[in-house]
């Protein structure tokens, strides 16, 4: 088993873990954390794809690397927006959950 495959399996588990957190945690902040965990797993799987595609003197396929960078920045923007919404909601209601089921 190569390093890339090892980290690929790690990424697969991370996606499942994050998904679990996203489903079962009632607090949005924990859901946002779980979303970032899934993101890390997905990017890791992409990184494994890139590593397997090492060629032309590069240690990995540069196209996925660039896309992962874009993805990380987009995930940050999403996190920032979600947290701002959550804090505003908290100020309005004093609640940290979404009510019935979120």
């Amino acid at each position: 088993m190569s390093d890339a495959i090892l980290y690929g399996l790690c990424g697969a588990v991370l996606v499942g873990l994050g998904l679990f957190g996203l489903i079962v945690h009632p607090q949005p902040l924990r859901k946002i954390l779980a979303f970032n965990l899934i993101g890390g797993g997905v990017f890791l799987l992409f990184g494994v794809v890139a590593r397997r595609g090492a060629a032309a003197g590069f240690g990995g396929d540069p196209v996925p690397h660039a896309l992962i960078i874009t993805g990380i920045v987009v995930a940050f923007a999403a996190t920032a927006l979600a947290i701002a919404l959550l804090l505003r909601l908290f100020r309005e209601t004093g609640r940290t959950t979404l009510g019935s089921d979120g």
Partner: protein
Amino acid sequence: MPNSATAGAFLLILAIVLPVSGVLLSLVLGGRHAERIALILMPAGLAVALTIAAAVWRTHNVLQYFVGNWSPPLGVAFRADGLSAAMMVTAAVLICGIGLFARGQFPSPQQSELRAPLVFWTLLPAVWGALNAVFIGGDLFNLYVALELLTFAAVPLVSLDGRAETLAAALRYLLFALLGSILYLLGAVLLYGAYGTLDIVLLSGHIQAGPIAWAAISLMTTGLLAKAALYPFHLWLPPAHAGAPAPASAILSGLVVKAPFFLVIRLWFDIMPRMPEPAAAQVLGILGAAAILVGSVVALRQVRLKLLIAYSTVAQIGYLFLMFPLAIKPEMGDPWNTTAWTGGVLQAISHAFAKAAMFMAAGLIAEALGHDRIAGLSGIGRALPITVFAFALGGVSLMGLPPSGGFVAKAMLLTAAVAEGQWWWAVVVLVGGLLAGGYVFLVLARALADASQPLTLLSPISPSRQGVVVALAVCAVLLGFIPLRPLELLQIGRPDIAVGGIR
């Protein structure tokens, strides 16, 4: 499929660059300039969309543009086929209508800058640009960025009024949308790992039935369903669409949920046309049927008009997904049932017009009455006859009564169900139509009843805004008069396997 950029394809770039420049300019100039910029963009963007549609129609071919002259797989392609062109024109006409309507709702003051108008007029072109990017995107990752663009433009529209319940609705919407995006991205990653490209056309040439392709398509479809609010992912939609200000509701319900649906079509009919999977298509159909029934029944039980309309959106989204079991044939290599496919797309377009008109009509009614409780609508038919008429026209299309776009769409789905021997979908379509009739009449009966005491309107409703609403509702009806030949536009750029004509 042409293998290089086609003439006139730079228009595709304009369809994205124009709205994006509008966003940047609105932000920097601020204040009332944002509204002006949006109003200037509207005719320009409409012209671009119409020109693209005309070019696709004239050349009978796909418009294709390679950004920076880098051809896929290294570069990113934009492509407009007949379906893209039809959706772009729909979006353009609706955005123009909604923009004109919103001038009365989000007026910009002369001097200072107000929060809600600036945000709305900045995000309106942002939604438009994102939709265009989705409709012409030829690369799965570029489409991911376009979907995120759409999400970030749409979510703030939900909580524009800053009330706690709309904040919660916006947050829930955002969480669902993010889950959808990340699942979509995961599928795209698997496809890249297997085939080394994210370009839709290249992928359709390489893709083989197998575990990787199936896992990728399932993940992407699930993610897109969460964004399209198909049952059982529908819970976020009603509070978000009903809580938003009327023009924003019209954008969200009419257009934004159609983007993920559009991408499901791309996945199922463009990326993997040679590997139809009837069982999976049946699952999509069953979810669609459940959405129709659950959404309609819950709509019947609503006490607030905007929530009723929002639940009706849940149901009408269900119809879109009936197209999959009806269009995809069990045997490999059989042509699709084009009637079902066209019916599904026509449903998306006519619902966009009808629903936008109904949400804006409900907005006018709520402005006039100060509330939108259905029980308190008595007499509004007399006070705002044009608005109620527009609502009724939209309702006609939802029910699938002739003559309307909804009628033609649902008739096509029915025809296909009979032709394919899958009569149970026909039952669902008919029952859904009856239930829609139920909730539309529920509202109309109240609205047309005489008020026990004379109705005083809180604020006068300008005729021009009512006119816009009626015009959009009339569009939904007029779609029913389109002869079948222009519908061939939708077939331009379909893979050869789809050639079968409209039966």
